[in-house]
Structures are given as structure tokens and as C-alpha cells.
């Protein structure tokens, strides 16, 4: 039985949210102007259901809208849906759509578009990464032209958050019916911008959508997205004023950007992490003592220095960083070589152990972690050979198959999402094969728990279990680093790493005139 406050907590309201900018400005944001920004890899997929990397999520976010939108505190706000309500058992959710919204071609948004979109995402033939991430949806139906009902396979409290998923952008039903693949080269969304030109490896240009549902936004007339694959050269371009905004940079370049004139370097703690996955179903990591020994050999503070250039926070072998709502502050594991040696000896390796750690070459921090851990763990008797390989080969041959490799993950919107992505027995990517039934029970209970305090206690227990049993060594979380020219107003670096909200951005005094 849900309390009244719980129902209000779960149900969304549109009061005063849509029209107001999130940040208070001294004066109203100026309209007009061209924002030139860079990304470090091409947005080579603009099909919203098939986007996979941040630059692609950016482009589809500009062109399309979801039902709900993730705020930077990881709660949701209305987007195409203005309100929503679950039934008492959290198995049926009803979403009210915003009236009067039109697609870029002028056709109105209706419940049919939402139904067709969600069905297309769930269809295995579409091959959308969103299929496993939009929530346990069994059925979706249009109640009336502006009302959609989603029926779930089980209780799920986080459905509005799941619908913010980066592939769950709403596309017109008629495109899905006629030629879904056409969205790879053209776009027809409800987003704040329209696609003006698309040359994936050089430049993507979007222009203001005059019919956007919020008459005040977007503020910019046009956004130009350039591809600068070399991070060092990209930072130089920012310093010389060639570009106004860069989405992500390295610690080394960040230090240079902090010192540069006219540049505002941006930094936000995040839940993005690197981990060392330990195959808990195979020798030697099926012995918890070997896993604990490795965990004790790693100096977490030093890892933050080596891998994140100091721009991060140490990890404690759980995937929740302080940026998550349900984070538990467990005392940080200190390196203890003597204890690690003893654990390793007890596990049957008194003379140490030889291992090969696989690290893909993208991002390069994977290899850096490998090299640092190799040296740190050597003292405890781990003789680690670091093997690097191209990302494509890694995905093909090692990922989810190997028993000792470096993983890299973005922050997820909820604790449930990250645990169910990686660590439960039926996780989408159950890499570690930890398969701990007690842990599964805790996560399942938290998933349907309505009371925030009880939920906090359950997630605390889950974190304690991971901290003790170490299915993977998580030694550092990254801060997200970016930079903008100081005349860019309204950009907020989102901890999720893949939400951008450029419709909130405007150009202040001192911005160059760009044709």
C-alpha cells in the first residue's frame, strides 16, 4: 500500500517546470547566435534508437524528445509527458502527453507515436540498445490521443527514470511504419533543434525549431558540431577561441584549460568508473580470498592520481559513487600488502600468481589502470601481464567472456540500473558471474520498495556485500571534465555524461559573431 506522499513522489507534475530555466540568470538569456562546439569522435549514427556514444546521444537529444527527462540531480522532469501516475502495485503506468506538440514536419504528436516508438525499441529486429534499458515493459497502449498506458512485467518504481533512456526518443509512428531506417540519414523529431546538414566526420549543423513546444527556448539560432579527434589539438582550439564548448577532455588538458584566458573549465563528480572484472566462476577468482587480496593490493588514492590525474574520487569496490542518491559512505579500503599476501597464501598461492589482464585501447585510461594495478599488485605476489587490444577485438573476444579484464562504465540514472546492468545474476551484462542469490534478493526488494529509508538500507546492504566480496575491483570514479568559453551561459555539465541540454544555452556578452 502506498502512502499519499509516495504517490506524489512517483507522479510527475508539470507545474512551473517546463517554462522556467533551471538556473537563475541575472538577466534573461539572450536569444540568437551560433554555438560552435567540438566532440572527440564522430556522431556517425543519428538514428535515435541506435545511437551508442555520447556525441550521438547529443545529436539525438537536440533533434528529439523523450517522455521524461533526467535532471542533473538524477530525478526526472516532464518532457513530452506532462504528468504520470502508477497503479497501486507499480505495474501499470499512465502517461499524459503534452498537447499541441508537433514534429519537425508539422504533424502532431499523439499517443500512437509513443506506442509505435516503444514497440519498435522493444522489437529485437530493430537491434536497439534501448531494448534492455527502457524498463520491464510488457505492453503499451494508447488510451486516448494524449494518454498512454504502459503495462509492466513486474513492479518497477523507476519507470519514469528508465524512460529517460538515451535511445527512447519519440519518433513519428508513420516513419516507423514506412521506413525506420531512413532515420539514419534524416531526422524528424520534436526536439528543440532541426537537422540542417549532416556530414558525420566533419560537421553536423542543427537550427532552431521555431515550433518547439516551449516558446522561450531554444535560445540559440544554430549549433555547429565539429569533430576534433585529437584531444590536445581540441583543447588548443578552445584556448584560441575557435570553439565555444567542448564536451569532454583529459586531466592533462583540463589543467591547461583552467589557466587559459576567457575559458571556463568545467568539472563535476560522476559515477563513471573503471573496474577490474574478476570472473567469480573460474579459477583463481572463484576463491573470494584471491579477490580480496587483489582489492587490498590496490592503492585507491594513488589510482585516482594515476588514472584520473587526480580528478576523481576513490572507489570502494561498489559501483555507486557519491553522485548517486543511495551511496553509502563505507570507510575506504587502505592498501595492506601483508594481509593481501596472507590471503593469497591461504587461497593456495604462497608463491604468488601469474595472470593476464586484458585492457581495450579505448579509452586509453583502461590501459593506464592496467599498468598501475600491475605495479601496485606486484608487491602482494600478483604477476600481471597487461595485454591491450583494439576495442572491436575486445568486444568480440573478451568482453563478458574473459575472467580478468578492465571495464569502463558511464554513470547510470539509478542504483537499480547499475546493479541490474552489471552485478545481479540476471544482469544484462553479468560479466563477473558473481551470481550471489542473497545480493539478488536485496536488489529485487529495493526495486519495489516504496519507502525511501528502507530502500536506502537495502542499497546500503548491497554495497556492503560488494565491498566485502569484491566481484570486481572498482578503485576510482572519474570526474567529468569539459570546458567552455566564458561567454557561454546556461551550460551545466551533467554527471550522467550523456545529457547535455543545449536548449538552455545562450551566448552572453563577448561572444564572437559567427556567420
Amino acid at each position, binding site marked *: 500500500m502506498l502512502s499519499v506522499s509516495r504517490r506524489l513522489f512517483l507522479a510527475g507534475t508539470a507545474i512551473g517546470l517546463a517554462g522556467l530555466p533551471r538556473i537563475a540568470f541575472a538577466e534573461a538569456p539572450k536569444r540568437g547566435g551560433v554555438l560552435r562546439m567540438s566532440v572527440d569522435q564522430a556522431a556517425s*549514427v543519428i538514428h535515435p534508437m541506435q545511437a551508442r556514444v555520447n556525441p550521438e546521444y547529443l545529436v539525438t537529444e537536440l533533434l528529439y524528445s523523450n517522455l521524461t527527462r533526467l535532471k542533473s540531480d538524477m530525478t526526472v522532469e516532464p518532457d513530452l509527458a506532462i504528468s504520470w501516475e502508477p497503479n497501486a502495485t507499480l505495474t501499470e503506468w499512465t502517461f499524459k502527453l503534452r498537447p499541441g506538440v508537433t514534429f519537425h514536419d508539422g504533424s502532431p504528436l499523439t499517443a500512437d507515436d509513443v506506442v509505435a516508438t516503444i514497440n519498435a525499441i522493444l522489437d529485437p529486429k530493430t537491434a536497439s540498445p534501448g531494448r534492455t534499458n527502457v524498463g520491464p515493459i510488457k505492453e503499451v497502449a494508447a488510451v486516448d490521443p494524449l494518454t498512454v498506458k504502459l503495462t509492466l512485467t513486474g513492479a518497477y518504481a523507476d519507470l519514469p527514470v528508465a524512460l529517460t533512456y538515451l535511445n527512447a526518443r519519440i519518433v513519428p509512428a508513420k516513419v516507423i511504419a514506412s521506413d525506420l531506417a531512413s532515420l*539514419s540519414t534524416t531526422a524528424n523529431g520534436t526536439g528543440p533543434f532541426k537537422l540542417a546538414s549532416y556530414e558525420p566526420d566533419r560537421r553536423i549543423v542543427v537550427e532552431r525549431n521555431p515550433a518547439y513546444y516551449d516558446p522561450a527556448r531554444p535560445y540559440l539560432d544554430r549549433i555547429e558540431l565539429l569533430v*576534433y579527434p585529437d584531444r590536445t*589539438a*581540441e583543447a588548443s582550439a578552445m584556448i*584560441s577561441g575557435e570553439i565555444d564548448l567542448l564536451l569532454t577532455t583529459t586531466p592533462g588538458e583540463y589543467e591547461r584549460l583552467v589557466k587559459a584566458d576567457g575559458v571556463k573549465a568545467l568539472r563535476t563528480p560522476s559515477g563513471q568508473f573503471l573496474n577490474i572484472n574478476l570472473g567469480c566462476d573460474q579459477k583463481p577468482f572463484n576463491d573470494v580470498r584471491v579477490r580480496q587480496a587483489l582489492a587490498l593490493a590496490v592503492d585507491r588514492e594513488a589510482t585516482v592520481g594515476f588514472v584520473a590525474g587526480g580528478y576523481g574520487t576513490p572507489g570502494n569496490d561498489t559501483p555507486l559513487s557519491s553522485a548517486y542518491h543511495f551511496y553509502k559512505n563505507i570507510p575506504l579500503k587502505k592498501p595492506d600488502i601483508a594481509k593481501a599476501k596472507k590471503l593469497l597464501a591461504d587461497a593456495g598461492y604462497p608463491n604468488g600468481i601469474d595472470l593476464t589482464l586484458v585492457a581495450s585501447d579505448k579509452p586509453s585510461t583502461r590501459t593506464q589502470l592496467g599498468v598501475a594495478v600491475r605495479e601496485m599488485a606486484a608487491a602482494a605476489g600478483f604477476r600481471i601481464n597487461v595485454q591491450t587490444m583494439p576495442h*572491436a*577485438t575486445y568486444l568480440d573476444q573478451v*568482453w563478458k567472456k574473459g575472467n580478468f579484464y578492465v571495464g569502463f562504465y558511464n554513470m547510470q540514472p539509478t542504483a537499480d540500473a547499475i546493479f541490474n546492468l552489471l552485478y545481479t545474476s540476471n544482469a544484462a551484462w553479468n560479466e563477473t558471474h558473481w551470481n550471489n542469490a542473497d545480493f539478488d534478493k536485496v536488489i529485487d526488494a529495493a526495486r519495489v520498495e516504496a519507502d525511501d529509508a528502507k530502500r536506502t538500507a537495502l542499497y546500503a546492504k548491497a554495497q556492503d556485500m560488494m565491498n566485502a566480496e569484491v566481484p570486481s575491483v572498482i578503485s576510482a570514479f572519474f570526474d567529468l571534465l569539459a570546458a567552455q568559453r566564458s561567454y557561454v551561459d546556461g551550460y551545466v555539465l551533467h554527471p550522467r555524461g550523456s545529457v547535455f541540454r543545449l536548449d538552455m544555452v545562450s551566448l552572453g556578452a563577448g561572444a564572437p559573431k559567427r556567420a
Partner: protein
Amino acid sequence: MTPAWFARRLMLMVYTVIVVSMLVFTITQILPADAAQSLLGENATPEMLAALRAKLGLGDPAWLQYAHWARHVFTGDFGISMRTSLPVGPEMLTALSRSLLLAVSAILVTLAVAVPLGVLAALRQGKLTDTGVSLIAYLGVSLPEFVTATLLALLLADTLHWLPATGYVSPLEDFGDSIRHLALPVLTVSVILVAHVMRMMRSETLDVLKSDYIRAARLRGLPERTVLFRHALRNALLPVVTIIALDVGYLLGGIIVIEEIFAIPGIGRALMVAITTRDLPSIQAGALIMAATYAVTNTFADMAYAFLDRRIRYD
């Protein structure tokens, strides 16, 4: 320079392209890592992989895929990129045009710098100028492009702020800005080319200066200036045509690195992206177009050489 010679030379060019196409196709067939997996990344599920593989036609036998591909290429259709879903042919040709802009600019800069320096070094053989020129030449050919590029960018962009560090602007959109953005990459490519051409120019000039007809010209009492420009230089320049044509091969390889660093959306970067994402149609088209460019350039260089040779050597 008979019509038969021309026909033979053109046939060799066609043969080159056919051999390259087979070679490239074979290599792309045995590339490890599945294109479908690399496209779908970490979100792939087995059903999604199977669906995508079927869509991409990855299941057919190799010879069938080659025959199919060759027939389409013959009609100018290089297929659809697995990565961007755009047609590969037009994308690669646009990319090639940007690379050619870079390459031709670099060759012009090289000729303007390397020829006078090479001749100067030959005339001052053994003197300080000669040694200086040789030293620069040795240094130029001894640094990999990515090092030269990095050092030049560090100096000219980050320290002196004379030039933009990266980026590409089309000359059709803003000519001045386009030149500014091209300057660093052109300079980088030119360093190695200048070193190479300068050395060749020096030794060719030395050879020509020692040749009998130059001695004869001097004996006839012609002014040194006439001897140098009318006879020596024209003959020494001839092999430079061939050298430049052969350097096009180096150039096309070198731009892979340079375009990556300077964010030029040319054919080198397109190939690099295609190789890392295992985008087979783009690898095939890119490599074939690159090799064909080399073959065509060399065919024309041969023809130009034959033409110039007849006119100059025996006048």
C-alpha cells in the same frame, strides 16, 4: 611515345587497380572482429547481432561477396557504410578532394622551397650552405610525421598563436580561414617532402653540372647564368617529376596520421576510422581509391616524363 606505348601504360594502370582491389578485399575478409559486434558495441545481444549480420550480408562466401562488390564498384557503387549508413563512394570522393587539396598544396610548397635550396647546395658543394642544407634534410627525413606535427603545433599554435591548432574549413566557404587551417598540416607534410626532394635536386644538379654537354656549353663561352638556367636546371628538374610522383605514395600514407592530428576529414582519416570500426565497405573503397590515385598519378608522371624528356634532353 607511340599510341601503343600509351595503351600499354593505361592497361598497366587498370591491372594495378584490379590487383589492389583483390588484395584489399582479401585483407578485409580475414580482418578479425565482427563488424556487427563492433557496430553494436557493448549493447549487443545475440539476437541483435544475428539480425544485423543478416542485414549486412556478412554470411555469404568470400568469392561471392567479391564478385558482388566488384560488379557494383565497376558501376561506381561502393556500397553503404556500415557505420554511418551513408553511401561510401561519394563520402570517400569528397574526403579524397580534401586530401588532394592538402597534398597539392604541400607539393607546391615543396617545389618552391626544395628546388632552389637543392640547387644552391649543389652550387656551393662542400661549403657551409651545403652542409646546412644537408643537415636540415637529414633532420627532416628522420622525424615521424606525428612528431613533426606535434612539435610544429606546439610552437606555431600553442606558443606563438600564429595558426589554428586543428580543424578544417572548406575553401569554398571561407578561403582565408581555409588557408589558415591548412597551414600547419601542409607545413608538416612539406618538411619530409622538402628534405627528400632537396637531396634529390642536389645530387641531380651535381650530376648534370658534371655532364659533358654542360662542360661543352661552358667551353662555348656561354654566360654562367645561361648555362645554369637554360641547360642545367631544366635537365635536373626532369627526375623531380618522377620523384614527386613516387612521393605521392608516401604522401597518401603520411596523411593518415596528419589528418588524424589536424582533424581534416580527408581520405586518410576516413580510412583510419574505417579500420578501427571494421567498416568493411569504407576500408575497401578508401584503400582502392588511394591506390588508384597513386596509379593514376604515376601513369601521368611517366607520360609527362616521356614528353618532357623528348623535348629537353636532345634540344
